[in-house]
């Protein structure tokens, strides 16, 4: 896809986003909707300017194509995001320390790092230190589940 079309699609996405929330903001009682509506109108305005500009611009930044990398290397950040969403959920179900140790090894493996000795050493130092600092020294509440 060309960069110009990517710009236009991005602008269209912004308009759709703003319109969805604008419809809701209009229904807010009293003056509650005024400020959100202002932001939504400005987003729509900016998107329209982006679209109009895309037809006249000679800016070199819009030359060439946008390429999507669907290989494992290209998708790695997305996969890590998905794993993190599960992690953020699991810490409150299973417990912080157990989930975090599993998450640490899993994400490190996902990035392509394979030195198990280094990973184990880091985990063996990091998590006891976190326990001492957060649980003993700060007496902080950490996410809890059915395990620690």
């Amino acid at each position, binding site marked *: 896809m060309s960069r110009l079309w990517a710009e236009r699609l991005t602008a269209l996405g912004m308009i759709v986003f703003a319109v969805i*929330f604008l419809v809701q903001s209009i229904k807010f009682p009293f003056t*509650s909707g*005024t400020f959100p509506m202002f932001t939504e109108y400005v987003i729509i305005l900016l998107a329209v300017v*982006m679209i109009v500009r895309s037809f006249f611009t000679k800016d070199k930044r819009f030359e060439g194509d946008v390429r999507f990398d669907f290989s494992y290397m290209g998708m790695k950040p997305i996969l890590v995001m998905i794993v993190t*969403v599960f992690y*953020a959920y699991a*810490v409150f179900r299973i417990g912080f320390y157990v989930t975090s140790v599993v998450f*640490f090894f*899993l994400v490190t493996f996902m990035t*392509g790092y394979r030195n198990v000795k280094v990973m184990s050493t880091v985990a063996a130092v990091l998590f006891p230190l976190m326990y001492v600092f957060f649980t003993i020294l700060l007496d902080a509440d950490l996410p809890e589940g059915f395990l620690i």
Partner: protein
Amino acid sequence: MEAFNYLGDVVSLANLGAMMIGIVVGLIIGAIPGLGPPMAIALMIPISFTWEPQTALIMMVSTYAAGLYGGSFTAILLRAPGTSASAATAIEGFEMTKRGKAIEAIRMGTFASVMGGLISGLVLLFLAPPLATVSLLFGPAEYFLVAILGLTAIAAVSFGALLRGLAAGMLGLFIATVGVDNMTAYPRFTYGMTGLLSGVGILPTVIGLFAFAQAITLCEGSPHTNISGKSKLSWNIWPKISEIVHCRWSLVRGWVTGLVMGIIPAAGGSVAQWIAYSWEIQRGKPGDQFGRGEIKAVAATEASNNGVTGTSLIPMFVLGIPGGISAAVILGALMIHGLQPGDTLFRKTPEIIYTVMWGFVLANILMGGVAGLMARSLAYCTLVPRGVLAPIIMIFCVVGTFTASGNPYDVAIMVVMGVIGYFAQKYNFSPAGILLGVILGPIAEQGFRNMLVITDGDIVPFLAGRPVSIIIIVMIVGALYFALRPKKWETAEEEYSGAASESFSEKHDEYAEVKDD
């Protein structure tokens, strides 16, 4: 000059010991994303409950100064700001780290922060009562205008993608409207989720947009390389005279911004850093490299956020009006020790208040030494392989966010903001713009609506009769003019546009070295 009578009182073993504890705890807690100065100060209250009031308060103000600076360590080294006041430093500081200049960024940040805190402390000591009256001149109109002044920084931090930067800022302002409306109690965009009723906090936003998004970025590419691309770190942790001379005006601009913004309740370091950063970009010279690791920007942002520390305590000590969360916690501690803020504090217990103020000044000096050594040790994390560092940052993001609020929804918000921040960074939508919107949105909205109520919709004559408002409006117009005008350093950059960016980077380094010499 009554203050000088109490200078000797601060130099006691108990006071110095308390100061050191405050500095070390503040630096460590401040460096961890999520655990900012308010938490560190709150931690000190039960410990110091039975101590002499001045000793306890010296420990707290030391923690405050050090905590705010500690946030810059991780901002510079990992793009994971420990506090929201270090977010602007994260942009340029981390770019310097990527170019193998972490130690240079840290030593300039340390100098700017220490001197900023010191100057701010001296202003607190000698000018507190007259300056406190200035903060009373700020009403809803001025809060609204200060927020608008802060928002002009979006134009500067967009780095050439102005439309996308503005859209990011608007998204931030929109996100700030989520939650219960303070004026009508109507829940906006909460969809029945109780966790969203209190809105989207600044802390999960800053951690998500910067730290978490950075951790995801670290997952790209080879997991065996490190951030800085170096295998050794310099021990040269003290700033060179040539570096200070090179950044002298940036430092002055940062300190002035910090001192002024500190006096305004609710503004603080989170706003001051962006105004200082934007000012710096507008004043850039040919050869400057904003957005790709400019030491002048690190100097200005760090000077501003620590320049705030002393002056932000002025309204609290003199009027009993805390300018921010940290000042509110210190106010609580003050009252726990049986002291009343205001005129009585200065008349009846001058030996306590002036000793605490001297303690704050001395703490900033001591902080320089401790911070330099601690930052040097922390800089080792830039040598850790990216594949190992990324999950560690993510784990700290989760634990930091949860520890700060105890709200699982904040962890979810942080992750969502991290995903937004990652894509915003990748597609030039300025995460800094989103953060600015989230920080300034509530101030702008509430100020504007309060102003409408007070004036019954007749805003212009109201503003025209308020000198402070007029001054801020002139500043906004000036900021917009300079933000939209082509900048000297950008023009110089275009001259190099045919060459690769690396080549420009080399040219800049040569230029900087020549200037240093």
